């Protein structure tokens, strides 16, 4: 946490912003920093343009793609936050890109056209939250059975479930 690291971090961020200035000129991005991590909020309708610009400016690995349900967070305007954690392999710089979604329109474009590693991560976000990614090559549930009705990680789903875990036939010893 010395002055040098803060300084180099800020200069890296400034260099990144200047690289992105021409490709993302019309897009409003909100930059913030916490514990030396750089976060940027992109608007949902320009998401694919932003992600392609990030990839073009050096972030060649998508480390994580996840979502947060902000129903009980307090003081926020939106319900869902989709988070992309990006990494630049050559310089080691990390960037966290976020976008916000609201009901009833929970569709955003898929990032598989930018990084193919986003494939399963997006299926998992759909599985857990119900956010639809349009343009995905193989869009179905990943972890839960295909006929599962709810989206478990939403805040209005109870942790013990709604009886799905006990909906199976019982085998006694005599009949097996």
């Amino acid at each position, binding site marked *: 946490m010395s002055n040098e690291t803060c300084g180099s971090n800020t200069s890296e961020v400034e260099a990144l912003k200047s690289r992105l200035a021409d490709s993302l000129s019309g897009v409003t991005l909100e930059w913030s920093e916490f514990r030396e991590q750089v976060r940027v909020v992109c608007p949902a309708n320009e998401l694919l343009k932003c992600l392609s610009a990030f990839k073009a400016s050096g972030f060649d*690995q998508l480390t994580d793609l996840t979502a947060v349900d902000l129903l009980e967070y307090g003081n926020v305007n939106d319900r869902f936050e989709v988070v992309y954690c990006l990494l630049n392999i050559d310089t080691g710089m990390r960037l966290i890109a976020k976008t916000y979604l609201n009901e009833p329109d929970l569709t955003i474009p898929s990032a598989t056209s930018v990084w*193919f590693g986003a494939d399963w991560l997006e299926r998992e976000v759909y599985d857990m939250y119900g956010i639809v990614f349009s343009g995905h090559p193989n869009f179905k549930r990943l972890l839960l059975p295909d006929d599962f009705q709810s989206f478990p990680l939403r805040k209005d789903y109870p942790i013990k479930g709604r009886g799905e875990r006990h909906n199976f036939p019982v085998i006694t010893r005599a009949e097996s």
Partner: protein
Amino acid sequence: MPLELLESPDLDADKREGLWTLNFGPQHPATHTTLRLVLQLDGEMVIDAEPDIGFLHSGFEKLGEVLDFNQYVTIVNRMNYVSPMANEIAWHHAVEKLLGVELTPRCKYIRTIFAELMRMHDHLLCLGTCVLDLGGATAFMYAFNEREAIYEICERASGQRFHTSYTRVGGLLYDVTDDWVKMVKDFVRNFPKAYRDFSGLVMKNRIFVERTRDVGVLSREEAIEGGATGPTARASGVARDLRRDEPYLAYDDFDFDICASQGGDCYARFQVRMMELLESVKIIEQAIDKLPKGPVFAGESGKTGMPDKKEVYRSIEGLIHHFESVMPNRQMPCPKESIYAATESPNGELGYYIVGDGTFRAYRARTRPPSILHFALFSKLIRGCMLSDVAAVLGSINIIAAELDR
């Protein structure tokens, strides 16, 4: 070794009729617990493989929203169950980064020693079970014998062989004793001989080499874009290791090398893991010699972490501090922010994205498991290989089903 590799196995519709589907079901002998693959085969050659996962999805992330930071560590070490303490170290690394807690040097060194022991634990299991899947039961026995020594070290420190729940926010559960230090030194002294036994059985073994060389090749670009990390990526030429690039705990104080290879095939992944075993022994040797004295908990004055038990029982300040740390509505305040923090777990980059909401409980505790991205790459790796190579490739990318499914 495959006879010839297909460059682009795109088949016309009439050729596709001749394929048959094999279900490599969730219960199968390849000792990697519950994974399912639906393979399309043309004779013995695998044309396509579609993985089906979720047979161990237990709702870990939902539990993270219900349990607080110190309770969730018991759940987190059930994720990568072959190296349990590595998950705990990663979780508390992320939590301490969010809360802004600085650890004592002794705690950092002990956690580093355990992280490296767990790395050896995981690599020994990966190598042992993969060789077992390919038919060599003796090497499996040798690897598990060394793992028993590591189990005893964990048991001496924390009381349990496995799933130790040893780390806490700002410190550890108990401090280590002198006979623990002696056990680690004995282990480090005896390990190179066991390593020579194991590698003599496996690495130059003609059957093993023929079954793993040029099988399941992962190119550097595919590894980067697909999100591969850890030994899987390092074996394809991505020389990135979080212990050197984003140093955490006490890794800055030690002198060690990063193991990488250019091959990208199964044999390269094994080589990287074998070399990492030796590097881990080097780190543990340096750490155990220089283990600093001092407290293990981050101390009372900064109100960061649990106080020493002697203070709790003998002074009123310690008692109050303990009460404040443990009671649910009085714990350490947490900023209302989110972070992503990763450590180099034996399988790759194990990251946690934690959203804090002011209380001592995570609002969202997302685990970024390395296995899910490796398994997503599996269908690319297996194209053109034979059916018997499926076991070799599955073993070399080291999928842990609980980490995959959470």
